[in-house]
C-alpha cells in the first residue's frame, strides 16, 4: 500500500517535471512548443556528454538546463521570436523544429541508445518490497521545481513583470517593460526546465533521438487540462492524470492506464469549460 502510494506520487512527480517547461512557455507567450519533447531529449544528451567527460552524473542536473537554455537563447532571434502569441503558427513551426532537432541529434550522436547511469543505486525498503531511492527523489525534485517557479512568479520583480506581460502585453510595454526580453527570458527558462527534466529522466530510460515524443504527449495533456500555463492548475492536472494512469496501470494494464489518462483529460477539460 505504502509502496503503491509512493509509486503513484513519483509517477505524478515525473509527469509534473516533464510538463512544467511546456506550461511556462505556453502560459507567458501563448506558444505551444511541440519541440518540448526534443528539449527534454537534448537535456538527456547533455547528461550523456557529462558522463562521457567523466564527471559525476548529478552534475548534469546543472549542466543540462544551462545547455538547453543556451540552445533556446540561440533559437530565439531566428525562430521563436516570430511565434509569440500565435498559437496555430507555433504548433506547426515547433513541430517542424522538433523534426529538425531529432534528425540533428541522430546525425551528431547516432541513432542508437546512449546510457546514463543512475546517480544512486540505493533502494528504500518499504515493508517487504524495495523501491528505488531515485523515484523518491523525483517527488522531492517536483516539489522544489514547483515551489521555485511559484516563488519566482509571485515573489520576484521578474515574476511580477512576466505576469503583467501575460495579462496585457500592450499595456505592459507602454509602461516601459521590455516585452522582447521578458519573452526571451521566459523561453530560456522554460527550455532550461525541459533540459532539467531530460537530465533527471535520462537515467530511468536512456537517451535516443526520438525519446521526446512519448514525454510530449503526456506533458501536453497535463498542460491542456491544467489551463493556460497556471502552475497550480498544472500540479492539479499532473496529480489527476498521473495518479489515474498509474492506478489503472497497477490494477489493469499500462495500456488501459494511457486510455484512462485520455478519458480523464477529456472529462476535466469539459468540466473546466462548463464551470
Amino acid at each position, binding site marked *: 500500500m505504502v*509502496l*503503491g502510494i509512493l*509509486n503513484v506520487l*513519483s*509517477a505524478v512527480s*515525473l509527469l509534473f517535471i516533464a510538463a512544467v517547461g511546456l506550461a511556462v512557455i505556453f502560459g507567458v507567450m501563448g506558444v505551444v512548443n511541440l519541440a518540448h519533447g526534443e528539449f527534454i531529449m537534448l537535456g538527456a544528451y547533455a547528461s550523456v556528454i557529462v558522463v562521457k567527460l567523466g564527471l559525476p552524473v548529478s552534475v548534469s542536473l546543472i549542466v543540462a538546463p544551462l545547455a538547453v537554455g543556451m540552445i533556446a537563447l540561440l533559437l530565439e532571434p531566428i525562430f521563436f521570436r516570430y511565434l509569440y502569441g500565435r498559437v496555430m503558427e507555433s504548433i506547426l513551426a515547433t513541430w517542424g523544429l522538433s523534426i529538425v532537432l531529432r*534528425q540533428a541529434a*541522430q546525425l551528431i550522436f*547516432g*541513432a*542508437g*541508445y*546512449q*546510457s546514463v*547511469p*543512475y546517480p544512486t*543505486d540505493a*533502494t528504500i525498503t518499504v515493508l517487504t*518490497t*524495495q*523501491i*528505488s531511492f*531515485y*523515484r523518491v527523489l523525483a517527488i522531492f525534485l517536483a516539489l522544489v521545481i514547483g515551489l521555485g517557479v511559484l516563488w519566482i512568479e509571485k515573489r520576484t520583480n521578474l515574476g511580477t513583470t512576466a505576469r503583467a506581460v501575460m495579462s496585457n502585453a500592450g499595456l505592459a510595454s507602454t509602461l516601459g517593460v521590455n516585452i522582447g526580453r521578458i519573452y526571451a527570458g521566459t523561453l530560456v527558462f522554460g527550455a532550461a526546465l525541459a533540459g532539467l527534466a531530460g537530465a533527471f*529522466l535520462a*537515467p*530511468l*530510460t*536512456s537517451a*535516443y*533521438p*526520438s*525519446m521526446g*515524443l*512519448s*514525454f510530449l504527449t503526456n506533458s501536453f495533456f497535463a498542460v491542456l487540462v491544467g489551463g493556460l500555463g497556471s502552475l497550480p492548475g498544472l500540479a492539479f492536472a499532473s496529480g489527476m492524470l498521473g495518479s489515474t494512469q*498509474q492506478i489503472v*496501470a*497497477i490494477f489493469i*494494464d*499500462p*495500456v488501459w*492506464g*494511457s486510455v484512462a489518462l485520455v478519458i480523464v483529460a477529456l472529462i476535466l477539460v469539459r468540466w473546466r469549460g462548463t464551470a
Partner: protein
Amino acid sequence: MFKLPERRFRLGGLMLALSMAVAIVIGSAVPSSAADAIKIGALVQLSGGAAFLGPSEEAAYRMAVAEINKSGGVLGKKLELLIADTATDPATANAGAKRLLNQDHVSVLFASSTSASREAVLPVVRQNGRTLFFYDAIYEGHACDPSMFVMGEVPETQIAPIVPYLQKSMGGKSWYFVGNDYNWPQNTAAIAEKVIPEHGGKLVGTKFVPIGTADFSSILQDIASVKPNFVLLIMLPSDVVAFMKQFHNQGLDQSVTAIATLVEQSAIAAMGPAAKGLLIPAGYFADATQSAKTFEAAYKAELGGNAPAQNFIALNGYDALHLWVLAVQKAGSVDKDAVTKALPEVARDGPRGKVAYSATTRHATFPIYLARIDEQGHPTIIESFGPVDPGPQCKF
C-alpha cells in the same frame, strides 16, 4: 488585399522550380549503372524510429554484394546494389519500393523493415509481378505471399525452444510477460501462452505497455509481488532499456531472470551494468561462435574498422541475399519463377550456421542460440538449439 495570393503563388512557383532543380541535380548525381550489372534493391531503415538498425542493415547487404562480386558475380555479371530508406514509415517504404521496382527495374527486392512497411511494399511487388521480394527481419510471424520469402526470428523460434531449456537448467516454472501493445508482442504472448503450459510451466502475468513507456514502476511492483522466475520482455529496445535499468535499480534482477527478444548491441550498451544476466535468444552474437568470428574478421576487412556492428536483426538480409544468388546460379537466370523453384533447394553455411528456406512455408530455418550478457555487456552463448524450424508459418 489582392496582392497576397499573387505573392504566395509566385513564392510557390519559385519553390516548385527550386525543388525541380534540386531533383534534377540529385538525379544526375546518381551514377549510371554499367550495362552488364544485375541491379538489386534493398529497403533499409536509415531514419525514423528504427534508425538504430539502418546502418547495420545497409552494411549487411553491402557485405554480401561485395563477397559475391569478388567471387565473380552472378551469371557472369556483377551485382549493383541500390539502397532506399524506408524512414521507418510505410508510405516512404511504398514510394521507395515503387522507385526501385518500376524506375530502376531491379531484379529482386529485399527489405529490412517493420511489418507495417512490409505490408505497404507488398502491393507494389504484386502489381509489378516480375520480381521476388525478400523480407529480412525479426517479426511476429505468419506473413504469407506467393512473391515473398521471409527470413528472421519469429515467436515460434525464439520462445518455443527456450521455455523447456530454462525451466530445466535454471529451475522454476513461473513466467511473466511484458510486451508493447502491438501485433508482434501480442503474437508472441499467444505463443508463450501455448508453449509454457505444454512444458508444465505457468504464465502468472501478462502486461502490455504503450510504445515509448519510460516508467515501469507499476509493472515492477506487480513483479515484486507475484515473484515469477522468468520475465519475457517483448518490447522495442528503447523500452527494454528503460525496463532493465529500473528492474536492476530496484534489485529485482537478483531473483528474477529477464529474457529479451529484440535487443542488439547498442541497447545492451545503453543498459550499462543493468544488462548483466539478461538472456537473449537469437541467431547471431558477435564473436560468440566460431562462424561469427570468421565472419566478423571478413566483415571488418571488407568494410573497414568503422563499419557498423553487425547484429542478428540485420544479418537476415546478408543471408537472404546470398541464398538468392545461390538460387539464381542454380536456376541459371533471375527469372522469378525459376528462382522461386530453386530457392528451397539451396542452403548456405553463414555467420549464424546453416540457413535454408522451406518450400512450403517460405520461411527460413537457421540456428538459434541463447546468450547471457555479462557485466561488460558481452554475450556468452549458454545453449545452442541448432537450426530451429519456424513451423507451419504459411502453406504453399
